[in-house]
């Protein structure tokens, strides 16, 4: 079975959500209060139909129980038997996989898949109700139909929460129980075990509580209670009643639940996987919890590997770039919440931008996906400058980028960077694009399009690359400081040779000479050209970061016109987020 559509109304922070998850792995990412865990909880509550679950007012959107919670989960890839008219055939609906919509009646002749919708409704009475939902049955007795107890067991997801102990015991709905084919431990065995325990205790107790017990008999006398001679401490039947949940996996005498959190989860994940035939859905909170990066990789690769089609559909949340690096773009869904309306969206991270290899950014810049805002920079030079500026601003008591949830990332050149900005914008991130202005992207319309989509475009003065601005447009002190920084580079000698090698009117003998002459306009121009030609700054991210911190930052006030606008625009965008 597969979940085709999840619809949530008025559940916790979500007033409304409609999401068609992917068939296999669904990793939910997004800001802390976007509603990722709420979505996982919604799936869990709806498909588990645990009648002992209690709801309270805080489970309703804005805490208002007047608007009922409605969670509808539509299941496809149904077992044949579910489709029988004598079972739930009459409740089937149609799933249009292309348009990702449900049609109330099936239509397999036109390629719709037969699906069933399970709905959880909680109204102000706080009494949960699970039924099969079909719009045309609203208000007639057929809307009261629900899955039988036996069939409900077939859709219960397993959840790897932060606490997973129970899955290492044979309790209700635990993975071990399901792996054992839901076999129940005979009541008589458990009864006999507790009888033996009482017997053993009786034999060994001798004298342990004797003094107290004797005292009690004496104290009872004055109040007129006569206790018999056989008063003793014994194991209470109630106190040690064993249930099958009390039977758990041990290694020797040590219960496996005492494994480290990570190991326990790995083990359970593996068990879960083998139970997949009977457990169609797995829910994992914070998949990285308790795991070192290499074990995360191992776990994810394992969960994703193809094993004769019995893989459970996976829903998980994460805040870890390591997790993202291991996933495909198809596996990722970005969850966003519009605070004023409570409308939540979950969008597949696959944006289908032809010009962009969408898998690449996930591998190379997982951090960006975990941010709220992305500053897409044309190249590494600009990333370095932005980071340097961030450090400079922090020194000057401004909020760091991190507070605003901003991450600067390299867009790999003037043509790719705008596409990357578009990609993130489509996923509803706040996006700014920081670009040189010496050359325009080949696609002349892309910048206008981005602006329309709401991307903030930040560019230097027309005709200028970052190097031009650094060498030309800020004071002499700045150029001198850059020369100093270059001189300190490991490859300083090579850099000097490259400068000397430039056929130019001005020649310099060594670093000191260059230091002296560098304020000269012609030398500045030659420095800028050479820096661009030989990628002095571009290939040295730490250098550009230092330049941002020590050169650009302190000289921001010297910038004029468009250059000044570019920098104030950047700061304003960050503060705006």
């Amino acid at each position, binding site marked *: 079975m597969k979940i085709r559509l999840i619809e949530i109304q008025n559940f916790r922070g979500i007033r409304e959500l409609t999401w068609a998850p992917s068939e296999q792995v669904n990793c939910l990412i997004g800001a802390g209060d976007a509603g990722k865990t709420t979505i996982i909880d919604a799936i869990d509550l709806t498909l588990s139909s645990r009648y002992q679950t209690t709801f309270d007012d805080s489970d309703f959107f804005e805490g208002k129980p007047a608007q009922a919670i409605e969670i509808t989960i539509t299941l496809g890839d149904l077992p044949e038997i579910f489709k029988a*008219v*004598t079972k739930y055939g*009459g409740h089937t609906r149609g799933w249009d996989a292309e348009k990702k919509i449900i049609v109330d009646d099936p239509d397999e002749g036109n390629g719709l898949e037969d699906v069933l919708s399970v709905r959880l409704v909680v109204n102000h009475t706080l009494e949960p109700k699970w039924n099969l939902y079909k719009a045309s049955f609203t208000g007639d007795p057929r809307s009261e139909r629900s899955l039988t107890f036996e069939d409900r067991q077939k859709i219960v997801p397993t959840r790897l929460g932060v606490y997973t102990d129970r899955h290492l015991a044979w309790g209700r709905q635990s993975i071990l129980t399901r792996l054992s084919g839901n076999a129940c431990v005979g009541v008589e065995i458990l009864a006999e075990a507790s009888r033996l325990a009482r017997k053993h205790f009786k034999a060994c107790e001798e004298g342990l509580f004797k003094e107290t017990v004797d005292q009690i008999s004496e104290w009872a006398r004055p109040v007129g209670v006569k206790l018999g001679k056989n008063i003793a401490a014994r194991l209470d039947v109630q106190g040690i009643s064993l249930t099958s949940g009390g039977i758990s996996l041990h290694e020797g005498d040590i219960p496996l639940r005492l494994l480290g959190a990570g190991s326990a989860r790995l083990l359970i994940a593996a068990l879960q996987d083998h139970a997949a035939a009977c457990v169609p859905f797995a829910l994992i909170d914070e998949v990285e919890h308790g795991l070192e990066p290499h074990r995360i990789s191992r776990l994810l690769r394992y969960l994703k590997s193809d094993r004769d089609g019995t893989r459970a559909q996976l829903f998980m949340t994460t805040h870890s770039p390591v997790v993202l690096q291991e996933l495909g773009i198809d596996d990722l869904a970005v969850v966003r919440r519009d605070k004023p309306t409570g409308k939540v969206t979950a969008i597949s991270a696959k944006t289908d931008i032809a010009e962009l290899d969408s898998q690449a950014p996930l591998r190379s810049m997982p951090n960006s996906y975990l941010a709220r805002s992305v500053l897409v920079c044309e190249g590494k030079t600009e990333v370095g400058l932005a980071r340097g500026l961030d450090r400079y601003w922090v020194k000057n008591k401004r909020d760091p980028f991190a507070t605003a949830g901003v991450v600067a990332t390299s867009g790999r050149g003037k043509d790719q960077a705008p596409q990357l900005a578009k990609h993130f914008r489509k996923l509803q991130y706040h996006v700014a694009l920081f670009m040189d202005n010496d050359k325009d992207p080949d696609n002349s319309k892309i910048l206008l399009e981005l602006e329309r989509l709401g991307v903030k475009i930040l560019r230097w003065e027309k005709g200028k690359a970052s190097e031009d601005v650094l060498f030309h447009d800020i004071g002499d002190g700045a150029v001198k400081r850059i020369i100093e920084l270059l001189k300190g580079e490991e490859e300083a000698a090579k850099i000097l040779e490259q400068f000397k090698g430039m056929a130019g009117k001005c020649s310099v003998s060594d670093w000191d000479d260059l230091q002296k002459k560098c304020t000269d306009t012609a030398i500045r121009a030659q420095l800028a050209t050479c820096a661009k030609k030989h990628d002095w700054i571009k290939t040295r991210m730490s250098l550009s970061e230092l330049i941002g911190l020590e050169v650009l930052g302190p000289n921001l006030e010297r910038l004029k016109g468009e250059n000044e606008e570019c920098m104030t625009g950047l700061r304003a965008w960050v503060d705006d987020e």
Partner: protein
Amino acid sequence: MNDIELLDLITNCRRGSVIAPAGCGKTEQIALAVLHSYGRRLILTHTLAGVDALRTRLKDKGADPTFYQITTIAAWSLRIASAFPLRSGLSLTMPINNEQWDTVYASAVKLLRSKCIDGIISASYSGVFVDEYQDCTRVQHQLICALVDLLPCCVFGDPLQAIFGFRGNPLPDWDKEVLSAFPKIAKLSQPHRWENVGNRVLGGWLIKCRDDLNGKRQIDLRCSPSSVNHCMLEGDTKEKLYQERIKLVLKALNKPKEEKCIIIGDSKNETSRALLARYAKASAVEPITCKRLVKFVKELEGSEGLERLKVVMDLVKDIMSGAKGAALTNVVQDVTAGKRKKQLDGRQTACVEITRSQDLKPILHLLEDLQKQQGLWIYRRELYSALCAALRVVISGTHTSLADAVWDVQNRRRHAGRRFAKRSMGSTLLVKGLEFDHAIIVDVESFKRNDLYVALTRASRSVTIISKSCLLNPVSC
């Protein structure tokens, strides 16, 4: 063909029909076929009584109920068509008349032909059996044909037992339409019903009668076995003939008390059947659309005062004997004229109240009170209980009009099937598909071939035919 070969044929054929003469073990054959089938079978029939019979038989054989679903064509069509309104176009969920039922069937046909639920149908059933196929109307036949495009199907029935229903709905032509959709694969020929009671001779004679009827030959009662009695009806006046007939019926009814007797009369004449029931002290079996009841409802509506009481008393007279209606009416007339001073009893009070308001409660009180009276014989018991039930429904507020309540009660009864008294009076239409110990056939002159066959085959022990001739020449149809 031995039994196993027959079962293989029935369960494996893509489309087929089995001709099942009366009493030749059709229900048994269907039950065995279900047990012999692979996967889950859908078994469709026409009445809840039919559903019951099949279900009981399967239960007796220990069949696992998860491997079959037995229901009526009506219920199945309604369920499936209303489950997918977008595809079937059906908007109603509670059909209340024949036109609406026809809409249900047509919608189900549309749905099945739409290809929208092919997967659901094939996930649900491995095949279909349809019982009493001769009773399928044309639209029901279309429905089964649409279903059969998706599933293997074998139908069971007997064209000679097809009796034109109370509705103007034509039946499909057996030879042209049914057999072309469901080629004949077998004919049952063992008269189990009679063999089971040691009356093999009668069973054999009926098989021969069947051949005669199919061959459009007359039946000569002079060469019938001893369990077939022919009573020659003689008399020169209509009156005499009638008296004679009652006498013969009463004589023929002289059977051991626990054996079930049925008098089979003219399908078209409800009143004459009621009258005969009255004289023969039998219970009249009423058709669903009982004319007398409908007439009563119509007359009651809008009548008042003594006229209203007369309407009620006329009905009382028609459904029971010994009610002393005239005396009651006299008391009420006295009360109305202010002449009566004596205390009234419950029944008299009810009658007075009937004249004074439109309330239905006193009518129900009167009817219930009459039932308790010694020596009173309700010979139209079905009508009586249907009316009481309808009155109760209106009084409890479920329905506002008596006409609706009557329809609702009758309709429910149609699905529930009826219980027969030990001595009943019915028509071929009302008794087809049912079994009795003894049958007494009157009005045989008005019978068509199918009527005659159904009438002759209802009883397992004896058949009495009261007629003016010992040669039976069915009206051609």
